[in-house]
């Protein structure tokens, strides 16, 4: 028994700690795992980005990790102090841009650089052993790198005085260079003295410098080092609470102003026991620790950002802000005196940040106000992608399929569904009754539109009417076998009222009038002008109103009935349920007329068949100020459904439903999708235009099966399965699911 407990405990402990174990046990890539690089490499590796590395000695550009990556070169500008290969510089360069060699050794196959395709421009600035270049050599190097196209520079070095970030102001060139090259990101190692950075007295001789460090140095990132447990290394300098002190006209400020504190420029990155390429041979690797090793991680992430979004090549301050605002908070909450903004994270940096918008020809639409919704009738749009932009003008692709009807979760909803919904029904004398349902009502977000109610009247002579709010389908004279499963949800564009259902979900009113013994007439109005307009609410449907007129005839023996239904639909913004506003507005008053023919045949007391066929004609004026514009001002669409319902099939209490249906599908037409695609390095917006043939490649056919039966002891068993062939009317695009439900009442 003890052994069993021990084994179980070991397994549990192993499973619980496995992710941490995996990270900490990998000496070659724990650092890149920690900062989320691997997931980014699928889409971006820094191709075309030039990275300046000012360091000591000559970077071994013929190291296999570098020679197989982007180009690499070292520029010395007469540095005779240290004309040799440098392990320090090579380690830094391979951390940024290694990763293309898998020569069979563990090191070469396991090693991962941050931006493997970036080009290294090495600058031999320092020589630890025998001296260094003059301070103004940095001017020459940075000017050279800038002219060569580099917009990020890694500086894994520090002044000789412990705790200082730069030299004293009178000797420091960085106060000139950082504001002067404001399009360049300067990544600076914090130093390895184990100290808080000491006050720096800031004065810039750069033209146009504001003398405010928080704006003049907005393109500066200071990097400290953490270990694999994300604790600050004991030797790493920290930002502390001091700052770049301003000159106030007569003396240096004695306190910190605004965001001049070092912590607002500070992030941390892995810097303990980092494995990377070294100088002794083209296949040499070594392990090093230091903020010199941490800084290139940040530089590499900057290269990834610049490679993916060229517009950032001219916006260094934005790059620094992205790095800061996407860092993983460590230590005390918020920006603190030990970790600054926290751990640099490549994966987060590559994600949208701040306000999001759509753009077309300079016209901006807030993404949050664009209630994009792609109906199944026009689901052929769903493979298309559009670009939205974040606060830093970075483009992100979003598939329109995200807003197409989704069958995801339908099984879950069915499993959780109640046979007796959360509603109260009350009969009032003289034929009146009312029902209130709180099925969709969320007390934490109370909305009137989520509260369904129905007031009905049924006279003895057959006259009746319904008035209320919410889903109307179940109140209509409809074949039950056509409205279950998928069709019972908001995707019911293949049921008895496929066009009218677009306006379903808001207020409604219906009147049922018998016309003699065999005929009846149903007329009604639906309006889905709901009160719901929450940001990116997936259930939001643009305003639509529908008029429905249905004539029904029943045979003498009541076993066969047929109905013809005329529907008139007017949509405020959209066509056939494809709607939205803001950037996706594309129609201006679209009307649809539809004819639906339906029959129901009661084969015997337990067995019935139902059919429905709809043809719709849509027409309206088109406008072109939105991202989507409809080029065809007339559309035709069809839908059909065939249903079977059988009770007492195997047992006395079971019920079987089966249907084959085709959701509403547009026969043909054309649309144009035009949107801002990306900003180039000069900040110019490039547009994308796509002509879309609405003639779908496939025809979606839904097969649905539902079986339920009662078991002993107040239990029931249910089975639901569906298969959608050519899902979203796309050829060879399928969806399916199956669920079994066992419920009991206690």
């Amino acid at each position, binding site marked *: 028994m003890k052994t069993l407990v021990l084994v179980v405990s070991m397994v549990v402990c192993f499973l619980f700690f496995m992710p941490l174990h995996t990270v900490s046990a990998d000496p070659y890539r724990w650092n890149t795992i920690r900062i989320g690089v691997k997931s980014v490499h699928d889409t971006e590796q820094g191709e075309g980005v030039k990275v300046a590395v000012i360091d000591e000695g000559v970077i071994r550009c013929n190291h296999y990790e570098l020679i197989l990556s982007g180009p690499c070169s070292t520029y010395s500008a007469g540095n005779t102090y240290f004309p040799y290969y440098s392990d320090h510089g090579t380690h830094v360069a391979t951390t940024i841009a290694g990763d293309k060699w898998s020569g069979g050794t563990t090191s070469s196959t396991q090693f991962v650089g941050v931006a493997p395709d970036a080009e290294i421009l090495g600058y031999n600035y320092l020589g630890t052993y025998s001296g260094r270049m003059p301070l103004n050599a940095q001017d020459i190097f940075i000017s050279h790198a800038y002219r060569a196209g580099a917009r990020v520079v890694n500086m894994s070095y520090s002044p000789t005085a412990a705790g200082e970030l730069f030299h004293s102001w009178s000797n420091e060139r960085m106060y000139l260079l950082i504001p002067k090259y404001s399009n360049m990101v300067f990544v600076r190692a914090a130093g*390895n003295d184990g100290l808080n950075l000491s006050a720096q007295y800031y004065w810039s001789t750069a033209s146009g410098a504001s003398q405010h460090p928080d704006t003049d140095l907005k393109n500066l990132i200071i990097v400290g080092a953490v270990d694999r447990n994300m604790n600050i290394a004991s030797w790493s300098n920290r930002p502390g609470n001091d700052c770049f002190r301003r000159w106030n006209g007569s003396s240096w400020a004695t306190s910190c102003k605004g965001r001049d504190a070092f912590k607002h420029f500070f992030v941390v990155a892995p810097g303990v026991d980092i494995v990377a390429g070294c100088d002794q041979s083209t296949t040499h690797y070594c392990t090093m620790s230091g903020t010199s090793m941490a800084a290139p991680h940040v530089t590499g992430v900057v290269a990834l950002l610049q490679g993916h979004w060229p517009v950032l090549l001219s916006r260094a301050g934005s790059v620094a802000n992205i790095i800061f605002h996407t860092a993983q908070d460590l230590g005390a909450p918020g920006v603190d005196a030990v970790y600054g903004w926290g751990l640099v994270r490549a994966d987060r940096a590559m994600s949208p940040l701040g306000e999001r918008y759509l753009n077309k020809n300079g016209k901006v639409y807030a993404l949050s106000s664009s209630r994009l919704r792609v109906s199944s009738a026009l689901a052929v749009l769903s493979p298309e992608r559009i670009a939205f932009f974040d606060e830093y003008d970075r483009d992100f692709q979003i598939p329109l399929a995200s807003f197409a009807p989704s069958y995801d979760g339908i099984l879950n909803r069915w499993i959780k569904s109640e046979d007796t919904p959360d509603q109260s029904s009350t009969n009032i004398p003289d034929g009146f009754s009312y029902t209130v349902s709180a099925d969709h009502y969320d007390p934490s977000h109370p909305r009137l539109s989520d509260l369904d109610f129905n007031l009905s009247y049924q006279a003895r002579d057959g006259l009746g009417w319904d008035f209320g709010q919410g889903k109307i389908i179940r109140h209509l004279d409809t074949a039950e076998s056509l409205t279950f499963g998928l069709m019972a949800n908001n995707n019911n564009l293949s049921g008895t009222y496929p066009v009218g259902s677009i306006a379903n979900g808001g207020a409604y009113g219906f009147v049922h009038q018998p016309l003699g013994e065999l005929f009846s007439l149903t007329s009604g109005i639906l309006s889905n002008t709901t009160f719901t307009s929450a940001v990116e609410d997936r259930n939001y449907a643009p305003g639509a109103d529908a008029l429905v007129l249905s004539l029904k005839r029943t045979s003498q023996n009541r076993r066969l009935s047929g109905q013809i239904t005329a529907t008139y639909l007017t949509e405020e913004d959209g066509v056939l349920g494809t709607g939205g506003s803001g950037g996706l507005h594309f129609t201006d008053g679209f009307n649809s007329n539809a004819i639906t023919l339906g029959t129901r045949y009661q084969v015997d007391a337990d067995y019935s068949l139902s059919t429905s066929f709809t043809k719709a004609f849509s027409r309206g004026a088109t406008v072109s100020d939105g991202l989507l514009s409809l080029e065809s001002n007339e559309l035709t669409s069809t839908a059909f459904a065939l249903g079977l319902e059988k009770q007492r099939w195997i047992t006395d209490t079971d019920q079987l439903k089966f249907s084959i249906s085709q959701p509403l599908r547009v026969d043909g037409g054309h649309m144009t999708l035009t949107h801002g695609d990306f900003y180039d390095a000069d900040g110019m917006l490039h547009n994308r235009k796509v002509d879309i043939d609405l003639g779908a490649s496939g025809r979606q056919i839904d097969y649905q099966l539902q079986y339920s039966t009662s078991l002993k002891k107040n239990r029931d068993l249910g089975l639901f399965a569906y298969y959608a062939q050519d899902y979203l009317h796309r050829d060879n695009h399928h969806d399916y699911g199956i669920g079994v439900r066992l419920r009991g009442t206690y």
Partner: protein
Amino acid sequence: MFILRKLIFFLGITCFVIGGCKTNLAQQDAGSDSPTHNAAKEVYREGNSVRFPAIGISVELGTPYLWRDWQPTVGNPGPDGGSPLYVSFNFLITNSSESHQEMAWVVYVKDADNVLRELRFTDRSQMPLNSMSIAPDKAVTIELVAHNGPYLPIGNMASLHLELSVNNKYHVEQHTTPVIVNQTM
């Protein structure tokens, strides 16, 4: 009567000398590695902790981190190009008494040849930090950094040797276990 006075004086001197010797012995014992305390129960020491029960002070020593830096460019580089030995060291002082206690320390680095060199410690903001007044019923973690160690080779072992005193009255010596000298770049 005179003889009796001489006898009392002699006994007093003897007791004073014996008492003094005991105190010295206790302080020397505190420097050994085994758990021990002085005869007057004024100082206890076990592992990396030291306690002064009479005045409610206890000290927990952290593990020091020793390194030399090669990040371009270092100040005062040695012949091998690296910085002097840097030391980062923490300890926790707990004052469980009802009065302020003044804690002071002198710290040496001891190399493999048992050569001692005094370290000048500061806090992380480079303010010299050799003593601290601990408020009643408080625990304080002291973070010390020194930059004036010897140019010990990377990979060598060294330990810290501490002289702790409370209120300049209670004294004890303690040392840490040897740790390796690391390298940063």
